[in-house]
């Protein structure tokens, strides 16, 4: 996994400053189907390759970030504020 995360607010910082929540999923609408809610709460892909996750810069700016990384090569292609996406 990447050693440094380029936080859009703080610059490159060691990964120990961050916590990973998991896949960057969009919360379904309140009236979405039962299946959509079940998938959101419980079902996760485990991709080999590009993957988007929510990371929290809890040891820095305390912003939630969307980190796009490749699980096979560890390359981080994009880090942006989760609110901006």
């Amino acid at each position: 996994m990447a050693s440094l995360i380029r936080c859009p607010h703080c610059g490159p910082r060691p990964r120990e400053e961050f916590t990973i929540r998991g896949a960057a999923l969009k919360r379904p609408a309140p009236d979405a189907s039962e299946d959509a809610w079940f998938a959101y709460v419980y079902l996760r892909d485990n991709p080999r390759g590009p993957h988007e996750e929510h990371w929290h810069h809890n040891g820095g700016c305390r912003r939630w970030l969307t980190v796009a990384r490749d699980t096979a090569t560890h390359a981080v292609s994009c880090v942006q504020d989760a609110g901006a996406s």
Partner: protein
Amino acid sequence: MTSYRLPAGGRVARGESLGFHFDGRPYAGHPGDTLASALLANGVRLMGRSFKYHRPRGVLTAGSAEPNALVTIGEGGRREPNARATMVELSDGLIATSQNRWPSLALDLGAVNGLLSPFLAAGFYYKTFMGPARAWERLYEPLIRRAAGLGRAGEDSDPDAYEKTWAHCDLLIVGAGPAGLAAALTAARAGAETILVDEGAEPGGALLYETALIGGKSTDETLADMLAELAALPNCRLLSRTTALAWYDDDVFAAVERVRKAPGGPAERLWRIVAKRALLATGAEERPLVFGGNDRPGVMLAEAGLTYARRYGVAVGRRVAVFTAHEGGLRTAKALAASGVEIVETLDARRGARVVSASGGRGLVDCEIEDGGRRRRLQVDALLMSGGYAPRIHLACQRGGRPRWSEAHSAFLPPDDGLPFVCATTLADALDEGAARGAALVGEIGRKAAPAAFGAIDGDWTPSTDKPLWRVPGSRGKAFVDFQNDVQADDIALAAREGYDHVELAKRYTTNGMATDQGKLSNLNAIGLLAEARGVSPAEVGATTFRPFYTPVSFGALAGPHRGPHFQPVRRSPLDGWARRRGAVFVEAGLWMRASYFPRAGETHWRETVNREALAVRGDVGLCDVSTLGKIEIVGPDAGLLLDRVYCNGFAKLPVGRARYGLMLREDGFIFDDGTTSRLDDQRYVMTTTTAAAADVLRHLEFCTQVHWPELKVRVVSVTDSWAQMALAGPRSRALLQAICDADLSNQAFPHMSARAVTLLGWRVAARLFRLSYSGELAYEIATPAGEGELVAEALCAAGASPYGLEAMGVLRIEKGHVTHNEINGTVTPGDLGMGRMVSSTKADFIGRRMLAREGLQAPDRPRLVGLLPFAPQAPLRAGAHVLREGDEARLENDQGHITSSCYSPHLNSHIALTLVTRGEARHGETVQVWNALKNEYARARIVAPVFVDPAQERLHG
């Protein structure tokens, strides 16, 4: 002068003497020596016993790959096992002890294992110790562990300090040999921030013992010039005694520096180096030859022999033979002879002259030579062998790439050509490539650099293009491939015969490469032998995986300063001093130190104290520190909307000046946390969380405001550390508080669940006052700026409030059936705790709404919160004990639930408990059994409502 020290030469300070002990005997050496060179100078060849067969062993190398000469250094807390004698710098008073021998190094009874070797071949574990399974733990493992082994770890606490640090640079160069130095000069001259690390005590690598002339100058002169120039460049940092251990993603490296001792300074420093570019100039390892007795003390690598002669001024023997399988070995032999070492014969395997066995008990005595079909014996006390060179690719492969076999080098090279790695076969190459790589790398980050030039090389290395010799033909006796793990050539062949011919399987079957040296010298020979056995190229066999660390690391370096009282931070409440002055007994709660109870003179048991404290609250007035509760301010026009969405009950209509209890769910419908939130003014709320979940709740709110609903105009911020907070509880609390408070505290002006700003102590303290009750009594929570908390607490105590701690608070809340994280255990819903009616049915959305509606979370047979009263009031009910119907056996299918919290209630004079019981709310009055599985004890108890004191809530509103 000692007998093996050459009359002249070497970089040791001959004018100065250092005394040291090895196995209790005193010796002397010089500054600049290693333990290995000093022992060799004293004629000591036997330095250790091998792992499995207890074979006598001496040094094989002069560097960090040393598999044989492992010793224990130091005593007491500074005792360090498995130190490589070749890397231990000699210091005055050094104490070294040999390992894995009994009773002594010279007479080791464990050597009987050597006679048993036919039974101890590869895979003997699996073949011999088949069963019974019980015997593993009791018999085989203790036996094997005693018989085979390395040094013993120290048991005393290490008195030395260790530290960690970060460094950032443009270019990190690993290895300060000719290539690394050339790269560093190139980069540093161009102004790049350059860090050059080297594991040796002295930088220089091959320049420390090389005979070639560079631009007409000796390597000693060249090295001195290079180091002087680097030292004068402020943008270059040279770290010697610093091993680059690991190469992580994003060019972050870990390195450990063995710091020269200074009073109060650290023993080791763990560096994390962030490099914009990195260059691996890690050099090459010489390959041993595989023949019978190649592990006898006195048999060593040719370049090690040259290093001892030229760097340390030590002859490795009086009659020395060189045995080589490639052209380069002949050059080493000449260099040795030129340095004053007596070379009696040079055997060139390519021309049919081979050593087929080396013999001698505690040290080499003679060799059996096969030369042009004739056998003869050659008396020597040292035999220097060279099978060729293999680049050190360990670091280069740590990020997952598979090394590639190069036929031209007879070695594995790094995974791809793009990797910044110097692979040089001559000194000229090393200097040129180092300089060129250095220039190119700093060029990539926008610095123009001219590659450093050093002039022509006179007497350069001879590139070897010879085919590798994996095993000496006609070899007799034990021929070792992996010296540290005692793996022989026959073991590799056996693994291949028995089907373990995949490189990763052969490694585990034979344990080749699994010792602490990770096969630095053995892997290539093992792969070659495996390839031969399979009849394929080493390219097809492939290499095993390289992982951090490059060499063993002390736990001290990894722990750094984080040990003892600094293992983790300690959080102290703003009221810590107030509690201490009252003799509080503290308990760790997460990182917090919380006052548990306040014993008084004459009290003999903690429960006596807790009973008194709880009775004082219900009968008079008590003061408790609740500063550790999480406090989060929520500010903005949409603050109420946010609260409405994160709590399952309604908050949008909470009036200014009022507080409300809220239940926060997870998205899966289970309870996450609870607490009260008060509305201080139109757009400002303050939320309290439980102590344990404070950080998680803040993170959750941040996720909600930043990711789910970024459109909400609201900000959240933790103010936990800004406020001291105390609970004043009991019938006399209003009277006490009114005396120091400016506001009207009557029931009409300030009823239960009110919140407002007040001033205390005659305008001295601006505080927030909440009328909340966890104890069930008339009670207030007072929040003051952190620095003024003690002032207020002292004033209230002076007026008669008695301090109570976490234990009494627990008793009071269990008596009232108030829940905490004992009950909110991640598997309970609001309905389970009897709070189902709180859940809003009108809100369109809140976190957890959809999943809470699932059938399973609404099922009627879910566990529900009830109270338990034992028939024997003085018999404790234990949290975790299970509830069974009367007469039922203690089996899973009979389980009715479990006790979540229990205590002794001084008001009921009985033990009581809160319990989650299937359909509990419909079973009040039922008699059940409580089974404590830990002690297999049964007790009878009655299910009751989960409120033991004042169910009508009259005291609360008093």
